[in-house]
């Protein structure tokens, strides 16, 4: 199970990741992170964040793979669908 230091570390990472997501929205186009690159970066950040919430906050680290697999599988599936829809929109 998680200890205090790990939980605090995860919170800091999640805050920095949120800042990155917000920054892509605010200044992404000016620093060259736009379009498909921004989409990929945003999805990657949310997969990292979601995985940390599942493993450390929800306590699924060390739990049967079945549950971790279902949860992380959901995250990957939703991200893939979003990416496919984005790709269709580019056409």
């Amino acid at each position, binding site marked *: 199970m998680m*200890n*205090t230091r790990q939980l605090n570390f995860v919170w800091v990472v999640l805050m920095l990741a949120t800042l990155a997501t917000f920054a892509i929205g605010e200044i992404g186009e000016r620093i060259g992170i736009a379009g498909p690159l921004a989409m990929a970066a945003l999805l990657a950040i949310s997969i990292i964040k979601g995985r940390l919430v599942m493993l450390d906050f929800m*306590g699924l680290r060390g*739990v*049967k793979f079945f*549950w971790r697999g279902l949860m992380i599988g*959901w995250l990957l599936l939703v991200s893939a*669908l979003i990416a496919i*829809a984005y790709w269709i929109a580019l056409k």
Partner: protein
Amino acid sequence: MEHHPDITAPHSGPAVAPPGDLAIWFFILAELLAFGVFFAAYAFARAHNVELFNEMQQTLDRPAGALNTVLLITASWCVARGVEATRRARSATGARWLAGGILCGGGFLVVKGVEYAAKFGAGINLSTNTFYMFYLSLTFFHFMHVILGMIILIVLWWQTRQGVYGPADMNGIESGAAYWHMVDLVWIVLFPLVYVMR
């Protein structure tokens, strides 16, 4: 550095079931499935109305959305700390952390309420256009889950204050906490998808 030996963790063995009641995990999966369908529907609707969605997204209050992300993640962290303290037989500390989670969750509802008020004040409603139909219904569906999560947290806070939970009985608090984290998890996908991605 303070060191807490992990003597009370009931789930430290190999290949165990998830924390809390197994039923809550089936419920969480059902909720995630519903949100997943909603997210995919949004993304594919956008694919057929890219210009409208990109234009309308510019009218959203992105700083408010980011602030709400901070509030929900911080609430989740507070709840995780509360569960951890209670597991170590420090339920008074645990209850204070849960109260912190309730405050952050309340902050989310206030910020979202202000956002809704601004949109409704501007005459926007479900029939304004496809983007706003999705924005309002998707975020309101999530809003209702935050409210349910808050009710659960308030009950957990009260029970934890009463000393209901401890190393020997973590089932209720772990189940309620898992539900709250699910609400946070959904927003982690919703914010970039609806407020930022273009």
